[in-house]
């Protein structure tokens, strides 16, 4: 006698977002810009094109499919500018579930000036704290940018959480990076309580500085550098976190408000396939739906029969090649962080994985 299988409740999804350069187009290349950012009003702050729509889409898709999606922000900005940021999130209609700021004043009081610029320890602690408070079994998506060391921080977090990187190996890495000893102690304590689960599915890096994508190969397929939030939405749709209508919503925002064209979006889609972030089959499926939705151009000029045959063959060959490019296979071992730091860290300085740390 067969037994009815009761579908288990979908695992909650936790999305953790960096703020500056990931959500906000913050400018702090110079001291003047830094000061301006600090005193900026909410209505003067500018969000990265498509990001607000994407966060709303994640929430909407979760509601549509009867699952929970939680959105948290982790910012290395001081809490003193928190009011303006919270107001900005309200202005943008972002449904978020928590926000954390870095208490820079405390570091100043302690005379730990180095900690003002060092974010690895701070973010790792906050990520682990967030994990302790997260719903049991939650999957995680992490969003950062290529200004700070987000790909490194998030990868450390993912590997620690999955149990691939134990404390004995983590501590020397953090020491090498120059993380404050007190923060290392906190990390060690939190690792013990955070539990073990391979929870981090994807780490998205917004290529605000246009860092060469090859740089991120070191971090494996889990880290996905994207050039715009349309690309991020496409990857999320391919992974099943969004529906095509959500991708279309993000695309429409870019078309209507940020001067994008259908061709720019189509090229973005092609780039994901070439980088084997999304399989050709998934890209074709999403692309076809977006064409029907009027987001991608449909007016391809007529080609010869021979050319169409050649293109069809190439698509077939591409599909075969790209089968291995779908969702990242589960990692069995942690990344080689020593190799990553050897390659990316100038001697005696904090690692600046994608550029100088802020």
């Amino acid at each position, binding site marked *: 006698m067969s037994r009815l299988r009761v579908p288990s409740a979908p695992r909650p999804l936790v999305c953790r977002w960096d703020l500056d350069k990931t959500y906000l187009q913050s400018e702090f290349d110079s001291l003047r810009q830094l000061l301006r950012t600090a005193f900026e009003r909410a209505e003067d702050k500018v969000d990265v094109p498509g990001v607000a729509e994407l966060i709303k889409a994640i929430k909407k898709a979760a509601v549509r499919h009867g699952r929970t999606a939680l959105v948290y922000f982790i910012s290395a900005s001081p809490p003193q500018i928190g009011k303006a940021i919270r107001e900005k999130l309200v202005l943008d209609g972002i449904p978020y579930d928590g926000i954390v700021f870095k208490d820079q004043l405390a570091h100043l009081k302690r005379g730990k000036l180095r900690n003002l610029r060092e974010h690895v320890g701070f973010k790792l602690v906050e990520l682990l704290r967030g994990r302790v408070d997260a719903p049991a079994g939650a999957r995680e998506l992490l969003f950062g940018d290529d200004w700070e060391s987000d790909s490194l921080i998030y990868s450390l977090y993912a590997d620690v959480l999955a149990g691939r990187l134990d404390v004995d190996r983590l501590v020397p890495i953090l020491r090498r990076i120059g993380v404050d000893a007190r923060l290392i102690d906190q990390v060690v304590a939190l690792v013990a309580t955070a539990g073990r689960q391979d929870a981090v599915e994807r780490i998205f890096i917004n290529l605000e*500085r*246009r860092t*060469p*994508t090859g740089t991120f190969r070191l971090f494996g397929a889990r880290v996905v550098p994207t*050039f715009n939030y349309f690309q991020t939405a496409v990857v999320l749709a391919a992974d099943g976190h969004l529906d095509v209508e959500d991708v279309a919503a993000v695309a429409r925002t870019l078309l209507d408000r940020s001067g*994008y064209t259908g061709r*720019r979006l189509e*090229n973005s889609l092609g780039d994901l396939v070439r*980088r084997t972030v999304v399989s050709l089959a998934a890209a074709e499926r999403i692309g076809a739906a977006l064409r029907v939705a009027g987001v991608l151009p449909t007016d391809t*000029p007529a080609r010869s029969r021979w050319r169409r045959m050649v293109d069809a063959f190439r698509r077939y060959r591409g599909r075969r090649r790209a089968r291995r490019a779908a969702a990242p296979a589960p990692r069995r071992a942690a990344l080689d962080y020593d190799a990553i730091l050897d390659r990316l860290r100038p001697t005696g300085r904090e690692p600046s994985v994608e550029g100088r740390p802020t």
Partner: protein
Amino acid sequence: MPIIAIDAMGGDHAPGEIVKGVARASLETDIDCLLVGDERRIQEVLETVPYNPEHISIVDCRDAIGMDEDPHEAVKNRRDASLLVATRAVAEGRANAMVSAGNTGACVLACARDFRLLKGIRRAALASVYPRHTEYTGQDPLALVLDVGATIRCEAEELVQFALMGSAYARRISKVPSPRVALLNMGVEASKGGETLVAAHRRLRRMPALNFVGNVEGNDLARGGADVIVCEGLLGNVVLKLVEGIAEVFTDVASAAARRRLTWRIGLALLARGIERLRELTDYTQYGGAPILGFENLFIKCHGRSNARAVANAVKVAAKAVRDRVPAEIAEAVASLR
């Protein structure tokens, strides 16, 4: 925004420098670039440099025409070579203009095969730029010379058409309101140079729409008396190669001298800033490339040794020529002849 097709596999440093040039253009401009070539190799290069994928699409093709291949044979038999796939993309309307640093003969033949000549144009012309003396600040340090090899022997009518094409191109691209056009000849007198040049001179002198300044001799080329120099392909090619050869010999002699004597080395070191400035002024990479004129579609031919900067600038020049409707302007100028 215009779409520019780029032959990623053509050139001495292809695909590396070509792809880097396109990556650079994608960051600096809104021009849409259609890279044609081996997708895997193109992607490998792209992943090492900053780029904006929103402005780059790739047409995958594995074949490429080598720099030393026989152009006729290659264009006839290598249908799926990147150069020919790119010219077809332009001819079919998938791109508005094209850029290549590949085999020059093959480029001209590919244009002749896939593009249509503008109405009234008898022969296409391959143009090139060369450094010349500037007379005022802001003057373009590079002048245009055409034809440099597309048409070996010309009739007077064809030289007149070259003058109109060169003038239209310089007006749009070099922003010279009334470009000075000259015939390259063996003397400044109107009667010099044989039947064809005399007839061409006579016809050009009678054209009020053209700022024809008469004949110039070889030694006037670098003095900057004209913005557009018109000549037969054979002569133009000899001139171009001579200029390049002199520059190379000059560099070689200077290097050898510097190695031989300390005083010369010191002298060169003292002149280093001036030499560098001269090099910057006459740097062909700032121009990117020169056009093949006379077709309905525009083709910018880059130097075979082009680096990323030259390719990026060639893409910009191509886009500018499309935006400024250079082929249409040439067609109008030629129509006024009839």
